[in-house]
């Protein structure tokens, strides 16, 4: 697999930048998916997926509806465990070399390390403050000073602090759609995960709110590894360093975003990114 460059990372929202592919620096692999088969009951949703997600970069999963990209994303923090009848048929997912589907893995601990932002913003029906401190309180943190500090840090991290600092104790449901989604991101980074999974985070947002979230993704990747599922190809092109194209439960092509969009190897990829199907 070819690796994206430092320069690509810094300018990746300008996909037309010409020097994208030239200077290659290898980013270490964080998530290593090998030969993964995944089943929903009798239906096989993923077929032999192998993929290496690099550390502190944005990896985008694209593909038409039902291609398995969200399923794969939800495998990464074992959210699929909540659905009856799902199972891993073969293969493994390793994060920093640890197989997360191993028998004695603490799923709770895993999910603290691998946070998730959902398609539809889903703040709890509680105050902004309580939304953000929820994860920490679960871990038994009661110190008011520490909680206050984390709230401010997370909200600043999610670029929401200035908008809500005067109404931290108002309901999270009173925010606009884009603010709610950034609140969900703040809530996720409050527990300091290493990886943030984003499942079509902007699909319910208007273009301005989308732009804000994308800007945020750029800032977040300095500290976190981000895997994002998106339907929006411009978004994948703008935000991501690497892109994986899925079709019918199979990984068709995985390469640097520039390659996928400018010079794909596979004709199916080419057809999809150029809008001829999907």
């Amino acid at each position, binding site marked *: 697999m070819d690796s994206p460059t430092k320069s690509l990372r810094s300018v990746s929202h300008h996909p037309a930048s010409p020097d994208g592919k030239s200077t290659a620096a290898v980013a270490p692999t964080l998530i290593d998916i090998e030969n993964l088969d995944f089943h929903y009951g009798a239906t096989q949703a993923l077929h032999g997926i192998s993929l290496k997600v690099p550390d502190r970069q944005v990896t985008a999963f694209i593909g038409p509806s039902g291609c398995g990209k969200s399923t794969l994303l939800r495998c990464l*923090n074992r959210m699929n465990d909540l659905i*009856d009848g799902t199972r891993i048929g073969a293969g493994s997912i390793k994060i920093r070399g640890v197989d997360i589907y191993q028998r004695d893995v603490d799923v709770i601990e895993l*999910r603290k390390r691998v946070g998730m932002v*959902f398609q539809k913003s889903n703040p*709890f*029906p509680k105050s902004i403050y309580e939304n953000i401190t929820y*994860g920490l309180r679960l871990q038994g943190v009661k110190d008011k000073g520490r909680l206050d500090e984390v709230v401010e840090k997370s909200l600043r991290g999610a670029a929401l602090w200035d908008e809500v600092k005067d109404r931290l104790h108002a309901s999270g449901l009173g925010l606009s759609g884009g603010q709610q989604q950034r609140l969900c991101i703040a809530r996720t980074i409050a527990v300091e995960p290493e990886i943030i999974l984003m499942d079509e985070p902007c699909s319910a947002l208007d273009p301005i709110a989308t732009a804000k979230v994308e800007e945020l993704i750029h800032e977040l990747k300095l500290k976190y590894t981000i895997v994002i599922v998106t339907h929006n190809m411009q978004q994948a092109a703008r935000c991501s360093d690497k892109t994986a194209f899925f079709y019918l439960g199979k990984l068709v092509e995985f390469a640097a975003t520039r390659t996928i969009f400018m010079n794909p190897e596979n004709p199916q990829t080419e057809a999809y990114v150029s809008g001829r199907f999907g």
Partner: protein
Amino acid sequence: MTTEPPAAAVPPPSFAIVKRRLSFFGLTLDECIQVFFGGNAFVAVVVLALITYFLFREGSQFFGQNRQNLTVYRQAGLEYVDFMRRQEQAHTALTRGLFELRMRAVVDLTERQKLSLADANQRLAGFDDYAGRFDDAIGPLRGMVADLTEVATAIKTKFTINEDKMEERQQLLEAGRVAESEAVKVEAVDFERELAPILGTKEAYLEINRALKAEFATLLQRMPPAPTPALQVEVERFKVKVQAYLDTFPSIEANLAAWDYRRPVPLWKAFSAYLFGRQWLTASFWQDWYGVVPLFVGSLMVSAVALFLAIPLGVGAAVYVNQIASAREQRFIKPCIEFISAFPSVVLGFFGIAVLGEALRSMSQVTWLQWLPGFPIAERLNALTAGCLLGLIAIPTIFTLAEDALQNVPRSFKEASYALGATRLQTITRIVVPAGLSGIISAVLLGLGRVIGETMVVLLCAGNRIAIPDFTEGLGAFVQPVHTMTGIVAQEMGEVVRGGIHYRALFVVGIFLFFLSLGINFLAQKIVRRYRISVG
């Protein structure tokens, strides 16, 4: 295979969209359907309106009649006699206290000090003398009350007969039979004259009262020491009670002196006597009382027991089924719980009498359970028995609605919680239940509505004693028999005279229940509506 006709031969498809409409009585089919369903809705509204109107029409006249009832109570001197009777009854209660003291003393002497019964009785001879003298002291007052009771009853009877005659005459007049109506002789009751024998005893009463005061004062001083040292506390307590009793004498005298049969009974008295009356006493030779408090308290106690059982069970089962159970368990548990409501309540009622009541009573006799309040249970049928069965009835309601409420909590809340590293228990207690809380509360309220309105079980199992349970026994009050608002209507409605005061009193109980249910349902709906907005 058929050969296709040449394209030119195909006629243009007809655009026949105009159709003659079917019509019945000048209405099209659509309009008929509209009339049919509209009619159904209309009938429901009309029936509701009629029921409400009937309930209020029949009930509203109660208060006028109750006022009349209270007026007669005053005019015929019953009220006057009752002042004295209360004084006498308070004394009887004190005497009973003395006898209880004696019983405890006997137990103490025979069991702890191992005396024979004869010896114990001998030891208590002094105490018995005292108790006897205490009991006899009230003699003169008791005699007077008995005499006056007769006089007052006679006046009341006379008045009632008169009323009946007046009504008869009125009916004859209305029927146009003037001559016959003239023949009905009505003697107006001259209360002034009739009451003379009662009011004439004022001096005698004061005389008796003076003697009583002196006697009790001496008795108080001569109180013998307790037969056993352990009971000394009780003796002191008794002395305090006697002193308090003596202190009520002046106010009784003042009441009697100020009493005037001509003073009118205000209308609000008719309301307050109903709403705050502590007695529901009908077909009495002396005076009928229609006080809703014992019935209301009975209903509340039974409902409290029911909810105490049904809330944890119903909500707990809902949480389990909705959040934890596997699909197969869900398919088994849900119908099971919902099946409870398929039992006719009369079946649950006789189950309560035959099995539960008996089981509770025999359980209450187990030695190591005696620390529980109210144990051993004296009555097989009581608020607890009825409440347990009502709880069973409320469980399906609470379970089903609470489960719905939990089901309505968006899945995304749960996912978000898990994604932040919450365990299942944390997700349930911190996210799912709080988010569904208003739905759960309204489920509980609707369960309460179901319980308050339930009739058959309470009629069969609550014991049907119309009295406010003795709350001095704390939680033990819950194992005493009670009567309920629904039970009384079911029990007495069949036997009352149509249009009589008792009949109307039952209607007012019905109105009371109506408002109670209405209020509960209104509250439940309001809470649910707020909940919907909050989840948005």
